[in-house]
């Protein structure tokens, strides 16, 4: 048959290297969303699904999930425009509030810091460890400064929401922008962002004051002016907590 001659061997097979698969055993569930590792069209990825919370009123629940998914996408894209690394977005299902995004190869900042701590656990190495985490803080602070300068507050800065691509502290990747805000961002909001980070570090890492000292140092590198205004607010917030006084 003449048509058979035209047939290229293998041309009518499904192309390899672009398959989908999901690893249901890797499911991790937080308060907010479920994370599952997967492969999307051949790329390592992760599905983040903001599932229904039965303890919330259904209407409120769907609005919150929608708003947070949207805020997350907007935050991730805005950060990219500002030159801050965030995961690539591969697929969005607006109905299920699920996002498929790039899987970042590397530890969380939390894990990285604690790994460094055990590497330098000897008494004599303590100074070295303090130097390392301070250096890390400077790099982190610089990135946060850039984020804030561009008018984006992350909303949930913790050492678990920062990843180190290939374990490289120069390649910080910010994740979880579900509570991010942008537009007209006041020094108050920026201050709260830093305050949340400070509290998060204090409660997850012992003997790690140097991180925050580094962060503030790096933060001022991004913009002196912003750093002064936010620093002043931060001192106020430390006294009263992140919620504003409602008296009067």
């Amino acid at each position, binding site marked *: 048959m003449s048509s058979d001659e*035209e*047939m*290229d061997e293998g*041309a*009518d*097979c*499904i*192309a390899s290297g*672009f*398959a*989908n*698969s*999901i690893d249901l055993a890797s499911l991790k569930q937080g308060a907010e969303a479920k994370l599952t590792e*997967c492969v*999307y*069209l*051949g*790329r390592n990825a992760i*599905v983040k699904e903001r599932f229904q919370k039965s303890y919330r009123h259904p209407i409120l629940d769907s609005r919150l999930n929608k708003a947070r*998914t*949207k805020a997350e*996408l*907007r935050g*991730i*894209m805005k950060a*990219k*425009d*500002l*030159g801050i*690394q965030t995961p*690539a*977005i*591969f*697929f*969005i*299902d*607006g*109905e299920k509030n699920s996002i*498929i995004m*790039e899987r970042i190869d590397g530890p969380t900042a939390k894990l990285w810091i604690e790994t460094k701590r055990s590497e330098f656990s000897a008494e004599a190495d303590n100074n070295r460890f303090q130097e390392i985490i301070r250096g890390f803080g400077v790099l982190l602070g610089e990135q946060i400064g850039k984020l804030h300068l561009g008018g984006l507050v992350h909303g949930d800065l913790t050492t678990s929401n920062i990843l180190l691509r290939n374990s490289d502290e120069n390649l910080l990747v910010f994740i979880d922008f579900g509570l991010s805000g942008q537009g007209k961002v006041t020094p108050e909001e920026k201050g709260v962002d830093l305050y949340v980070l400070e509290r998060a570090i204090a409660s997850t890492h012992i003997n790690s004051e140097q991180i925050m000292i580094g962060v503030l140092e790096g933060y001022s590198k991004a913009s002196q002016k912003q750093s002064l205004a936010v620093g002043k607010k931060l001192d106020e917030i430390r006294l009263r907590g992140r919620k504003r006084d409602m008296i009067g």
Partner: protein
Amino acid sequence: MKNSQLYELQPDPYDVTQRKFVRFCLFNDVKNAAELCQLLREQKIDAALIRSELVLEPFVLLAAANRAVHQSAHNRMSCRSLSAELIYSLSPSRNISDSLVTFGISENSTSIIAATFDDKSGSLMKKLAKKIKAKSVPFENLGKSSNVSLIKKVYQVGNPSFAPESLPDHIISRIVSKDFVS
């Protein structure tokens, strides 16, 4: 069909009960682009004809195709046909006609990607290829004819501070998030 490449998509990723096939074929030295445009306008071609210089790599094309079949499976298409939806899905813009003009074939195109859906046997592509006066080349050549500086302009990635290898990732993020951002 020779040189064409078949891919499997899941309109709802990881829901294996649904599957959709898309077939791509790259054509160079296209001689009758004006005629093809006319046929498209008369709806005599049931396929997407895409300007290949704006497509960086297969993954970008597939992510856009997956977006298109997802929208179609949920009756949320922005365009009238799945083929048009694919072209619209490649664009960072939400303006449909701008997107079709930018990413679709134009009268002076010389290199195009043809895409057919539900064409597992390749018969649709075969029929289409008869209408295209051009040389089909293996699909691995996709990306050789892409115009990176034009791509950067179209997707508005002027930011200096990101690595060149992340350009496709940036483009895909732009594409899939366009309905949710702004």
